[in-house]
């Protein structure tokens, strides 16, 4: 069996003159968590809809669990999904909503209570959906996605509306699922969350894939920042000058100097500073976060 859960090749969707998704090509390996990120309107949800057979691509192709997205009935029994937030019948209880989907999908309805317990809704199973808070609705959406005991989980912004504890619970749940072999394809604006849990990343900008690969590889491609601090604040300007004379751009941030340069240059910089009579009280090299990288790559400053 293929080790690829999702494979998209030149996948495109055009609405009139507008290309919502343009020649998107990427792969997601089985049993991994893949973050799907991009600014609002970059085509994430459209791509997910195409992968789930909800909309028809205008170009390209894709396979899910080895089956073409042209025949969604061949793979959707092994896929759980929550797209564009949770959507349920307001007058039905949380449990009854799940039973509707379980019956429709041919899954045992006795799975419902354990799933509600798993997402922390066990004690509100018999409350009507319309009485749920946003966070509870999100949890119900995740429970619905887990109904088929999926090989692939497609989640669109699953942590929207969750409190920090809820976000951590979802993170742990997704990690546990991935450890059990479930592939998770997750879009989120919580980039710190994505950075923490994702093994790989697909980044979109204006409908085009601008990065697809391992998260760590993306971060390592970025220029590290050398952060230097001196006890004497008057030395900061001198440190900046030393960096610039060595061909490195930098800036003063609060009481530190941030210099763009490879980790290996930090030692040389320390020596140059010492030779100039400056004793550094702190010197470190840090990689940019995914959030900083995202802004850098997408030009999005939301």
């Amino acid at each position: 069996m293929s080790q690829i859960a999702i494979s998209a090749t030149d996948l495109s969707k055009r609405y009139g003159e507008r290309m919502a998704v343009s020649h998107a090509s990427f792969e997601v390996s089985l049993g991994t968590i893949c973050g799907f990120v991009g600014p609002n309107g970059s085509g994430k949800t459209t791509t997910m809809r195409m992968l789930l057979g909800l909309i028809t691509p205008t170009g390209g192709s894709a396979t899910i669990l080895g089956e073409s997205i042209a025949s969604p009935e061949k793979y959707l029994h092994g896929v759980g999904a929550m797209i564009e937030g949770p959507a349920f019948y307001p007058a039905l209880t949380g449990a009854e909503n799940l039973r509707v989907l379980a019956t429709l999908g041919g899954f045992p309805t006795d799975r419902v209570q354990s799933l509600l317990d798993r997402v922390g809704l066990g004690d509100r199973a018999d409350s009507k959906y319309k009485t749920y808070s946003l966070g509870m609705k999100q949890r119900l959406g995740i429970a619905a996605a887990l109904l088929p005991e999926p090989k692939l989980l497609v989640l669109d912004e699953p942590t929207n509306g969750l409190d920090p504890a809820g976000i951590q619970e979802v993170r742990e749940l997704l990690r546990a699922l991935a450890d059990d072999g479930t592939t998770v394809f997750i879009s989120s604006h919580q980039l710190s969350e994505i950075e923490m849990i994702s093994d790989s990343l697909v980044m979109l900008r204006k409908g085009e894939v601008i990065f697809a690969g391992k998260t760590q590889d993306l971060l390592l491609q970025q220029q590290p920042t050398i952060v230097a601090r001196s006890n004497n604040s008057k030395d900061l300007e001198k440190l900046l000058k030393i960096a610039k004379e060595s061909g490195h751009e930098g800036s003063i941030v609060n009481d530190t100097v941030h210099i763009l340069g490879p980790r290996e240059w930090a030692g040389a910089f320390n020596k140059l500073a010492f030779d100039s009579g400056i004793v550094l009280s702190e010197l470190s090299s840090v990689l940019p976060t995914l959030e900083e990288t995202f802004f850098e790559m997408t030009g999005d400053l939301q």
Partner: protein
Amino acid sequence: MTQVFFAEWRKLRRPTLFYGTLASVVGVTALITSLLYLLIDSDQGNSNGGEIINRITLATPHGITIGFSGSAGLLGLVALCVFASQTAQEYTYGTLRNLLVRQPKRLTLLLGKFVSMSVFTLVSVLLSAVLSVAIAFSLAGKADVATDAWTTSAAGSELIHTFINVFLSVIASGTIGMILGLLFRSPISAISIGLAWLMVVENLIAAVVHHSAKWFPGQMITTISSGGDHNASYLYAVIYLAIFLTISFGLVAYLFQRRDVSN
């Protein structure tokens, strides 16, 4: 298909919808059948459109079915509302995407929903028939209507025929509701357009344009429920509606299969 049927049934049996609809059916049937007997001596008439149905007519084997068949129009409107709202709400709630992820064969989803709602309608019509007959027997004595002919085999046969006709007419109204729900994707739009067309527009045109009634689905639904009337024969109405609904349903089913689900 079976899975879709039972999933839809779970939604239909929720108390507010299930008992609410049955209460409407009880109300409509009780009102129309009761007025038939309570206003039997009224100069204003005791049936649809001020028509007077006298004791002689009511005392025939057919008489037992008149109250029930008179309820068909309003039962049809109830069915139209249920079919339209149950279909269109999948769009307004955004639940259609959940359903399609679990059942990607869109035609199967549509047919399963239709069959489920049809069974729900069958329960409603059955309740209406039983209630109407019970009210007829209980009020016949008070209205001085002879009931001897109502217990004959001819009356049984009339009742079965009327039941089939009413059921067909109510299902036809429901199908129109489902078609409108799929077309407009909003319960309010589907129901209001459906009711306005069937109750106002068709009747106005049919009253003004001679012989136009036989081209209108709402008018032909009435013809079926009454087993044929001055507008058209029963057979014509059945064939016309079968063709009209098959083509209309086929077109919206094609649209449903092809249309992107983007909400």
